[in-house]
């Protein structure tokens, strides 16, 4: 599906203006000619990615990214079939926040992933890295996504990775949150496989990781 830059601009503006009706109209028009997942992947996801990049560049606020994501969540819910958009062929995935009650990252990432047709279980807040790793192993996860806010919590991802290794699990760990954004070396330091700076970039990251085991 080819999306003109004008249409993409309109979708971005609708998201920033929190104009659900305008967004619905753009999606409905695209759906007359294209399948649902493709419309979300080529119209809504890029618009949200632009907003994410603008945040990364310092031109927009996290609150605006969050509110745009919430609008997308509503739109995705209107198109949900069995809990998500059309299924992808993918490994089992789950996402958890480590040790903190006060972050937005998980919701932003889940919204981006669901919009892209990824099925990801929401494991809420995990207070014990070892138990989180054991749960991931028991569940046979292919990917465990961990979000953190505090530097200390980010460093405890190392315990998750070590426990997974000790269990012989093949679960791959992807991390995100302020400590990893402010200190890019931390991702490798804790033994995680990858990180990205903002939520809307996670679907593309997972796509590349799934394609490159």
């Amino acid at each position: 599906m080819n999306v003109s830059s004008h249409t993409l601009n309109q979708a971005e503006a609708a998201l920033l203006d929190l104009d659900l009706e305008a967004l619905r109209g753009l999606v409905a028009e695209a759906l007359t000619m294209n399948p649902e997942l493709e419309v979300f992947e080529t119209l809504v996801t890029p618009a949200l990615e632009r907003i994410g990049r603008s945040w990364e560049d310092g031109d927009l606020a996290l609150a605006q990214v969050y509110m745009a994501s919430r609008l997308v969540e509503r739109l995705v819910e209107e198109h949900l079939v069995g809990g998500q958009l059309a299924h992808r062929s993918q490994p089992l995935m789950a996402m958890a926040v480590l040790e903190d009650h006060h972050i937005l990252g998980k919701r932003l990432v889940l919204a981006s992933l669901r919009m892209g047709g990824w099925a990801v279980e929401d494991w809420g807040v995990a207070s014990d890295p070892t138990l989180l790793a054991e749960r991931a192993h028991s569940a046979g996860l292919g990917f465990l996504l961990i979000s953190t806010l505090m530097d200390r919590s980010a460093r405890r991802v190392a315990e998750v990775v070590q426990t997974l290794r000790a269990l012989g699990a093949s679960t791959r760990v992807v991390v995100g949150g302020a400590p990893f954004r402010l200190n890019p070396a931390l991702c490798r330091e804790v033994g995680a496989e990858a990180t990205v700076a903002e939520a809307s970039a996670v679907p593309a990251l997972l796509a590349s990781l799934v394609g490159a085991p």
Partner: protein
Amino acid sequence: MITLLKPAERLGAALSHQEGDRVPFFLAVTLHPARALGLSIQDYLSDPEAVVEGQLRLRHSLGHDAVTSFLHASAEVEAFGGETLFRTDGPPNTGAPPLTRASAIERLQVPDPTQVPALARSLTVARGLKARLGDDVPILGGLVGPLSLPVVQLGFERYLDWLMDAPELIRKLWRINEAFCIAWGNAQLAAGVSAVAIAEPLVSPTLLSGELIRKEGLPALRRVREGIQGAVALSSASAPMGSLLPELSELGFVGLAPSCDESLADAKAILQGRVALMGGLNGLAMCHWSPADAEAAVKEALRAAGAGGGFVLAEHHGEIPWCVSEEVLVAVAEAVRRWGAYPLDWIAV
């Protein structure tokens, strides 16, 4: 002959945009004294006498130009029914948000900070430090700003959800927080602190929109600053102040601490002669520094912002991470003494 100033005089010169004997520096060691005293972080922060002793010990070993009576940010959430979760290897964090229903905001009254045990401990620390140090060494108090408190009072998601769906509730909470911040700041001043530092990451246009901050946030911060009857500084706790820095500099704060991602030289140019700039040290990066890295970072900060006064070398976030070694802290202190003596002639070489 070089006359060494007392720390209060050195900081006073910097805040007056004068060059004293050297660039003043302050390392916000809120956790490290526990290690020095052989106590757990929880035992240390729960014992005001230990905190006084710990602050004095670190002041002696580092020779920095202030001490702090600030204990931990989660203490303020306790005033609103929240809890503190202590860790053995990092700062305390807040537990689940205490205000989860609209009705809780509608009924909410401004808490009396002096009646909250965790805050009362901080006041005891301030009185203890004042008794030991008098007026020679400034004591910095601290508080979380009115825009940022809701992150821990409500949880960030609920905060932004209500900002979208029930903005009147958020405005009411901001007003309550303003009154609480003023009361808490004044209680600290009455207990002996020399200045109060407000940690307000939500004043960053990377977190809330610049439009909202200009409309609601800056007036709220001005009211808090005016309500606190003493010197007040503002830190965005690692979040960039960005395009708002010039407007923040008009609110009457004695010092501003932007993010470590922002150019110190640019910030100094904006604040020049009006408001002191605080910062220059990236706390997270410090965890990986060698003593040589510490010296290089100090020199870089001094080169960018040291000349002409108006600069206090400090860690941007407001708390030195637990993972930073004492060796690095000492290296920072030695580098300031070596390279920070005015005039900074070496910069021109």
